[in-house]
């Protein structure tokens, strides 16, 4: 007797459809699972058996074969167990064959028959919805997340017994739990950080604003106490809120990495700050078995903060170059090739040398300093549109504008960019391709003269010259102007200093 149930498993951060086929026939009692399950999938046999017995469902003492199709794709995790259990019930006639027509099933089982949540429910339900499934049974903990996908009926599962009763029509489907409380407001979410605590530092503020508005990568170099980390930590407080498409993607990524508590769409832009001992796969993504998204993907649509940039492994930093340029990460393995989004703003801090003192009091040897500087390769440094040398402030200054005020300016600059780039493959000034610079960031004759001057006087690469033009575009957007003035270009070149 044969039954088949639709389910899905995670492939990177996307859902991959899986058909769970269960065959029960006469013969010596046996249980075989085929179709490239991982270790968790192979162990599922004992969980399914115990869960069924705990739920007063008879375990068929016959020859059972479970196949996970397509057979060539590696399946990960325990999220197929509910589908296997329901398939067994169909195959042994505990349920009508037709009750699961057009229904997708997701969920892990506990030994007591409870249905446990799965990682990446958002992506899995999305994949099922696209395949034409009309309703999906999901663990109750994933119900809110799953209901973010429009056009598909969500059936909430608490326990295997409950699912059986609901499917056979003996009981109604349980209600989805009460909606979660409102998310905290932006101010609360950012805790006690506010840009008004930063006194003075007008140049650094302007750079931070540009990074938030135009998604320009920002590098700050300076001695300890110059305020680098303080500024960087306040970047999320001035970033524009996520728009609906971005929010869905951020939630999807978070859900795929198993951050379950997000029961509604993400509202905060991600801000990831990995420690400098992070390995290349941790930053970029990868790892053995199912490739996992790295920090660059988790920071997508938000900011990736690398404090003490010079302390990161040089290979890890150089691996950042391609995602910085293309805003996606491609992970290739023998069995599969995956593409993760990596649309992040990089914000990095570094000391000028290992001892970290200002150049006049530095005790490092020439070789040590040179080595430290060489850890940051020129191609990596070149990808920072904004580069600042900060010094510890000497004069006491007035507190500056608050995060809320700065955020207003950023939001309106983002709105200007969204309007300008509507229908184009990029959305922020930093992502303007070189070919489109003249069209979207054209310079007046006067501004062009200043730009030429900056190009001639400095040791700018082609990328550096374009970076100044992009930053000038963002400065004009922040001032709510459509034309770029000579002042914008001057300030943009002042924001790209020769550091470290």
């Amino acid at each position, binding site marked *: 007797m044969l039954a088949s149930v639709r389910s899905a498993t995670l492939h990177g951060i996307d859902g991959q459809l899986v058909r769970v086929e269960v065959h029960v026939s006469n013969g010596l009692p046996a249980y075989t699972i085929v179709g490239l399950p991982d270790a968790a999938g192979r162990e599922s046999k004992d969980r399914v058996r115990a869960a069924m017995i705990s739920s007063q469902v008879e375990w068929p003492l016959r020859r059972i074969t479970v196949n996970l199709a397509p057979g060539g794709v590696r399946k990960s995790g325990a999220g197929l167990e509910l589908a296997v259990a329901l398939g067994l019930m169909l195959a042994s006639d505990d349920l009508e064959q037709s009750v699961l027509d057009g229904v997708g099933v997701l969920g892990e089982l506990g030994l007591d028959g409870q249905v446990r949540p799965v990682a990446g429910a958002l992506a899995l339900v999305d994949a099922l919805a696209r395949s034409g499934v009309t309703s999906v049974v999901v663990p109750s903990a994933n119900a809110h997340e799953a209901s973010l996908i429009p056009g598909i009926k969500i059936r909430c599962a608490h326990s295997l017994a409950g699912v059986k009763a609901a499917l056979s029509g003996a009981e109604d489907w349980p209600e989805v739990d009460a909606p979660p409380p409102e998310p905290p407001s932006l101010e609360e979410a950012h805790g006690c950080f506010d840009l008004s605590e930063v006194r003075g530092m007008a140049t650094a503020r302007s750079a931070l604003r540009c990074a938030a508005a135009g998604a320009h990568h920002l590098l700050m170099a300076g001695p300890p106490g110059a305020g680098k980390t303080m500024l960087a930590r306040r970047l999320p407080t001035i970033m524009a809120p996520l728009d609906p498409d971005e929010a869905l993607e951020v939630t999807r990524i978070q859900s795929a990495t198993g951050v379950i508590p997000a029961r509604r769409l993400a509202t905060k832009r991600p801000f990831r700050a990995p420690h400098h001992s992070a390995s290349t796969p941790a930053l970029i993504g990868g790892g053995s078995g199912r490739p996992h998204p790295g920090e660059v993907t988790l920071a997508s649509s938000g900011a990736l903060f690398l404090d003490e940039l010079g302390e990161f492994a040089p290979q890890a930093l150089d691996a950042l170059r391609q995602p910085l340029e293309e805003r996606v990460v491609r992970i290739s393995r023998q069995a599969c090739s995956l593409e993760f989004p990596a649309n992040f703003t990089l914000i990095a801090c570094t000391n000028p040398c290992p001892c970290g003192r200002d150049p006049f009091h*530095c005790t490092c040897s020439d070789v040590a300093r040179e080595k430290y500087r060489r850890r940051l390769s020129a191609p990596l440094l070149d990808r920072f549109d904004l580069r600042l040398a*900060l010094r510890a402030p000497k004069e006491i200054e007035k507190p500056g504008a608050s995060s809320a005020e700065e955020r207003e300016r950023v939001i309106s600059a983002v709105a200007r960019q969204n309007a300008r780039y509507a229908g184009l493959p990029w959305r922020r000034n930093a992502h303007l391709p070189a070919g489109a610079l003249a069209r979207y960031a054209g310079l007046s004759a006067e501004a062009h003269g*200043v730009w030429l001057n900056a190009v001639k006087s400095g040791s700018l690469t082609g990328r550096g010259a374009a970076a100044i033009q992009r930053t000038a575009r963002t400065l004009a957007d922040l001032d709510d102007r459509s034309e770029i003035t000579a002042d914008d270009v001057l300030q943009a070149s002042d924001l790209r200093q020769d550091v470290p």
Partner: protein
Amino acid sequence: MTTERESALYALVALPRMTPSRLQRALHIWPDPIDAVKGLASGAAIKVIGDERRLNDEGRSQIAAGWRMVDVLSAARVIKRNGTRLRCLHDDDWPIEEEDTTLPAVLLNEGDRPCALAAQRVAIVGTRAASPHGVADAHALAATLAEAGITIVSGLALGIDAAAHRGAIEAGGQTIGVVATGLDVTYPRSHQSLYASVRSRGIIVSEHPHGVGPRPERFPVRNRIIAALADVVVVVEAASRGGALSTAAAATALGRPVLAQPGSTRNPVAAGCNSLIADGALPLLDASDVVIALGMTSGSRRAPIRNLSAATKPTLPADNAGRQVMRALGGEPASLDEIALRTNLDAPGIARAVESLCTLGLAKRVRGLIWPL
């Protein structure tokens, strides 16, 4: 001096566990290095190291065994291949007057102009983390002195040292680079081309055999050779601690005049120079101070001080904003934020003013700071 003699000297320098003071003792026992080699080869090392109380018998016999292997033939090969010349303290043209056990007994040199040692010599030293002002001052001072036929001695390090060598070379003068490594080692490595030009416009000098690498403890020892080789030592910029001050201390110990260029108390790389002046060094205001210290003029009174500000700032910016920014800088470097605090200009105004100052050559942007020139 014959090549045989130089080979013998090199063989002595290259011996394992040879130190300047042992070398000095050996050359006092055997004034001719060829005799010294013969003596050591026949096991007479004990005459040199016999008095050293820190050595036990085992150590002595180890050293003596090593020194028995003294190899004049390979020494001859090395100095022939590299064109190395050696002098010892018994030579007529030995450049150091004093006899002191802490000073080297043998110096190696390579380069096209050994005659650089025959002229009057001024050492120009300072910090590696020099400011643009310091680099420009060291360069100009070296050029002025080199034009007057004075040899510029320095240490081939980054910052002031490099600027001094370059100033001398560009003025067509002679220069001596004293290094803390073997003569075949370039340190820092980025100075490859500077090493080559110092070799062609003068010589590089070391007390170490070839192949000796840079070690932190070798640099202060090298500084004492710079001081000994110079008739006058000039410190252009130095932080409150660092190698330049050890050169100045060695020069004072040897009785050489030390000059230091004064600077603002707010400038961290002027602190060392200012404290030298407070301790009795002569203030350096222009090249004539060095000439007086060398005793090259009859009068001890210096020429009237030029109006420095008029000399170094030939044109004042015409516009009000430019003047405001120059006043806000006050001769010291400042960041854009600091300029904003000290003027009533807005950010674009400052950016414009700084840009025009840079175009006029009155200021320079370095790592986020604006330096008045």
